[in-house]
Each structure stands twice: as C-alpha cells, then as structure tokens.
C-alpha cells in the first residue's frame, strides 16, 4: 500500500496583527489656509 501523506488540517491559523499608524504630519498648507480664513472672516475669528 502506498503511504498516504495526510496533510493535517492546521489547527492554528497564522496570526497577523497590523497596526497602521496614520501620522499627522504638520501641514504647512493647512496653516496657510487657516491664516487666510481667519483674515477674511473677522466676524468669526
């Protein structure tokens, strides 16, 4: 009889944890946008 290779059902899955870190780089453009918005809307700022 030929040997049968039993691929055992793996009981343990591969555990993978991924942390996606979304840094907030300081945005120069946001800063400039804020300056113009503050300047143009005196009644709000």
């Amino acid at each position, binding site marked *: 009889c030929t040997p049968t290779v039993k*691929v*055992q059902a*793996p*009981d*343990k*899955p*591969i*555990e*993978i*944890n*991924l*942390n*996606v*870190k*979304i*840094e*907030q780089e300081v945005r120069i453009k946001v800063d400039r946008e804020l300056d113009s918005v503050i300047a143009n809307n005196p009644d709000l700022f």
Partner: protein
Amino acid sequence: MFVFLLVTGAAIGAALVYLPVLARPVIVQLAENAGIAGVDFTIDSIGWREASLTGLTLAATDTDTGTGTGTDENTSPDLTVGAARVTYDVAGLLRGRADRLVLESVRLAGEVTEDGTVHLPLLSRFSGGEGAGASGGFADLPLDGIEVTDAQLALATPEGPHVVTVDGMLDLSTHPRAELTLGVAGDAVSLSGDITAGMSGQWIKLAADALEAEIDLPGLPGRLALAKGAIALEAPGLEGGTGTLSGDLRFVRRDGDDLPLREASGRLDIGMTYDQGLLRLALPACSRVDLVWDRAQPIRAKSIDLCADGGRDVAGLRLGPAAGEPAWTVRALAEVEGFSYGTLVTGQMPDLAIDARQDADRGLVVSADMSGGKLRLPGQGIELAGLRGRVTLAPGHAGEAGRLDLTRADMRDLQAAPRFAPVVASADLSLDALGEDGWTKGRISGPVRVALPAGQSLARGTVTHDLRSGRGRLSFGTGTLLFSEKGMQPQALAPVLRGVVAAVNGQASVDGSLSWTRNGVSASGATVEMEGLGLQASAARFEGISGTLEFSSLVPVRTKGPQAIAIGVVDPGVPITGGVALVTVGDNGDVVIENAQWPFADGQLVLTSGALNTRASVQHAELAALQVNLATLLTLIDMDGLSGEGTLGGRVPIEIRDGTVFITKARLAAEPGGVLRYSSAGTDAAAERSEGANIAFKALENFRFEVLSVELDGPMDGDLALTVELKGANPELLEGYPVHLTIRTEGAFLELLRRGTVGFRALDVVRGTDQTGGVTIERVPPGP
C-alpha cells in the same frame, strides 16, 4: 318892567308848553331823515337844555323784516326805549341837530337764522334799507353823541333765545369813538367784555379786552370757554385791516359725550388780516394746547404745539356771501405721555405734523406726517421705531376714510437673543370706514413690505386689521430667497438659527400667514420650500436639501408634525447620497431629525433609534447598516487596488457631544463570507516591509474570508480607531493555510479615506510600520 318879565315868562312858559309841540316834528323829522319811520314817543319834559321822552317805540314794519314777524298787528315793536333824554341848544335844534342822546333800558329784537345770518330790523333800516336814502352809518346821525345804559337785544337763534346787553357811550363828533361793555347771555353763548372803537377819517380802530366767553353748542362735544380775551383791530377803511386775537381757550367735554378727550386748554395768540372779504389768520408763535384724556384712551398726547407751517397763514375764512369752511393748515408737534393699547402696544408715538384742510366737497381732510416714535408690542417682543410716513384721515368720506402710507419703520426683536435681525417695514394701508360710525370702527388693509436695512426685499404681503374687533391677519411671501456664502445667510436673518445652520447656499421660499386678536397672535403658519440647499450643521455638512416644510405655528416656531425632506449629499468622509429624512422643527428653532435613511453602497443606512437634535449638546442615536454590498462600498472608498465581494451589515451607535460625532463601538460584519483583494504597489514596496506584513499582503491578494468584522470607535472626524478582523485564507498562499489577520489603524481613518481620494495607495502607508514596532507575528508551525 314887571310886565315885560311876565310876558317873557309867559312866552317862555308858552314856549315851554308848546316847545314839545315844536320839538316833536323836529325829532320826527330828525328820525325820518335818519331813515327811521314809525317812531312814537311821549315827551316828558322839554327844557332849553334838555328834553326827555319816555315810552319811545319803533313800530315793526313789514317792509324790511320780511321774515313773517311784520304783518299782524300785535307784533312787538322793533325797538322800545324806557327813557331817552336829548340835550341840545335851541340854535342846534333850529339847525336840526341835537347834542347828546341818552337812552336807558333799550329793548331791541332780532333773529339769527339757521344759516347764521343775523336779522336786526333797526340796523337793516339804518344801514340803507330801501327808502332810507341816508348814506347809512352812524356818522350821519344829527347828534354829537349817544349814551346807552341797559340796552338789551333779544335774539331768537336756532339754539334758543339769547340776550345781548350793551352799556356805553358813542361819541359822533369829528372823530367818532365808542366805549361799550358788551354781554351775551343764553344757552349756547355767553360773553362779556369791554369794547372801545374809534374812527378818524377813514381809519377805524377797535379794541376789546377782559373778554370772557363760553360757547356750548349742541353740535360741539363740549363747552368752549375763552378767558382774559383781547381783540385789537385796525382798518384803514372797510376794505382791509389787521388785528390780533388772544386769550386762554379751554374746552371741557360735556358729560356723557363719548369723545375720549376730557379737556383741552391753551394760550391763543392769532394774527388777523382782512382784505376784500377774506379774513386770514396767522400764528405768530406756536401755541401749546395741553390735553387731558380718559385713562382708558390708548393714545394720550400730553400736549400739542400748534404752529404756523413755515410762516404760512394758518387759516383763511372767506366772509360775506360765499362764506365757506376755513381751510386750516397748521402744524402740530404732539408730545405723547405714556401710551398703551391694552397690553398690545406701548411706547412713544411719532411726532405728528398735522395739516387740516378742507377738500373740494367741503369735507375736512386731516393729514399728519409722522416721524420718529418708538412703539413696542410687549406680547410679541417687537419694537417699531423711527417711523416715517403720512396718515391721512378724511372722516367725511364713507368708504376709504383714510390712508396710512408708511414709507419706513425699523422693526427690531426686543429679546436679548433675537429671533430675527432688524428689518425695515413699509406699507400703503387704506382705512375703510365700514358704515357711518367713522374710522375708529373701520378696517385697515393694504400691501406690506419687509426689506433688509441695506435694501434687499425680504417679503411682501397684505395685512387687514379690524379696528372694532381688534382682529387682523397678515399673509406674506418671500419669493425665492437666494442664499450664498458671501451673500444672504438665514442665520443672519434669523439669529435663532445660529448654531443650527451656517455657510448656507441654495434657494428657499417662505409663504405664511399670521392672525391676531386683541390679546395676541391667535393662529399662524407657513410653508417653506427648499431647493438644493447646502448647509453646515453641527454634525455634518448637508448638500442638496430639498422639500417642503409645513409649519403649523410661527409663534412659537413649530412644524406640523414630522416633514419629509430629501438630503442630497451628506459627507461624513464618504459621500452618502439620496437620503430622505423626517424632520420636525421644535420650539426654539431646534431641528430634530426623527428618522432618516440613505441608500448606501446598494444597501441602506437607517437611523433606527434616537433623534438627531441639531441644538442638543449631548445626544445618542443609532444607525443600522443593512445589506451593504462590500464591492460597492470599496469602490466608494475608492482606494487603489482594493476590491472585494460580500454583504456587510451591523449597528453604528453614535453620540454627538457639542457637535462632534463620536462612533461608539460600531460593529459591522460580513456574513456568511466573501473575498477581499488588495494588490499592493510594486515589488520594491515589499522589500522594506516586515515579514509579517509581506505575508499579510500576499494573503490579501486574494483573501477568501469566513469572517470579516469591522469595528469603529472614536470621533468620526478625528482619531477614529478602526479595527478590521479577517479570518480565512488565500488558496494560493501556503496551500490556503488559514490566516487570522487583524488590521488596526490609529489616527484619522477618514483622513486615510480622504488620502485615497487624494490619489495614492493609502495601505502602502504600512511601509513605515516597523519603526513603530507595530507588527507582531506569531508564527505557529503547523501542528505535529
């Protein structure tokens, strides 16, 4: 010698005896050539110096009276004189002239007819009645002076009998002068005063002072009294002259009359000029009239200053046959005391410049130019100030009894946190006197306009108000209002919307109505049509809002139950379109979204519990995601290289704190399973990645999952933590060895989405994972 005395005595005696006989014809002749016929008298005594007559009567003849008093016999004579003394000297007598005539207890009769003309038989004879021939006027009397004591003229007038009493002296020498004390007594008029008059050549001067008079005509609503009156007149001839009239005038309302004015008093100084039949009156200075009103009278002017309008005459009276009503043009500045109309209106009336004029068909037209004033409606918390306009009242005309043409009134909300911004109202209202009970019971109606102080029109409408019942109604429409970020903003018009909406663009129109009774607004409603409105609400920005909101009440603001509106787009990070929501507007402008649903990625997002109140500071609600198609969702997220199949559903509880939307542990799961594919960027990216990451990406290239669960927690537009859990395998990886992949993102997940839209492969961001040491790999060899 004795005989001589005897003879002269006898002659004198005879003369004395006969003198009356001699004198009678002279006196009769004297009377006749003065135009008096029918004179009868008995001569009491005649002396060289003086004669006295008694029982002088002047028969009433039918020629002049002509008013029915003349014909029958027993009519009372026109004139009776108790006693008359004539002084003369014989020479004068022979020339037909006497010195002085003293009349005592003179009784004269006359009549004042309905239209005010005075019939005095004696005078009419005197002043050139037919047949008199004399040129008329006292100057021609053959006397030097007349004295009258206790003369009474009995006048029959439409208002009952009146007696005019006269005492005084008439000097007819070269410069005729008269000094009389005059009195009138009767029901309608009583008067007393001293009059002096003088003539030199053609000049006539007349002065009256210590005049006291009272007039109480039934036509007038009260008694009119003049005190300390004085008149001064000067006339070069009969054709023209000038003069002044002054005195303290007082009006007192008769009891029982319904005129709200109880009393009015004021100092009067009038200048008069008379020429060719026109008497013109002028007010050299303003005279102040103080007024006392009934307490209940809502509009109480404390005093009115009557002034000539820019030096023009105040009135012109045409005397003589074409006598007409005076045309008055007087300006009055009313200073108003406290003023209230029940609790409806209080404040300060505007200044009134009143112009009273007689129009074509002799009706009186009173118009007042209004300016200033500050009227408050405490019930509604509204103030009208700086009024400018003209009120015209023509009480005489039935139908349109008056007009209010209000060119401007600044309307302001008195509340500390105003509901509406200051606006300018204007109106052209007509006042219709229904029936003949005058305009106070009439109806006001006409077009009304409301505009911004800068001029743009806000709303037009029509108002009707019934003065009798105090009920009224205003219906209005705004037409299409265009909102734009640099132009008109609803929260500028209605500050009550501040914090509810901002940065609004699009079109809306409001049509509504308000009805009120004496005690306030009784009903109100409106329909608001919205077309493609975009606005920033505290939770999110909404675009493409359209639909109709029915308001069952404007005061306070309230919708007629929940109203369905369409929400074109809401973008909490991923554009969600085609929403429909049930909205109610609550009492102080809160907009409450009761339930709403959006088609979302072939499935639905439904607000299942709680309500979103735009103003509440903390609120809880829950959204349910139903049958969301993973493939469509991923195309929505539009992240390069990411796709998949499956159906996602779950609960998304949200909490809104001060406008920030927090997702509190939302769980979405894809049952029963599906596929997720992510083809990462080029190979170089893989090299830098950690081994675990490589496996993950290989697995994700074609990951068949049994479990896909997504957990969201945190501020939606801030550091929203997202955890994706995948259980399954990639058949081409390790012969489909099961992989349990957990991806946690930190930082603003929405930013990830937005980056996706900004066009680079967000997940590649993972490259830098190792530096943060975020990757842990549990490598468990396959079982033994």
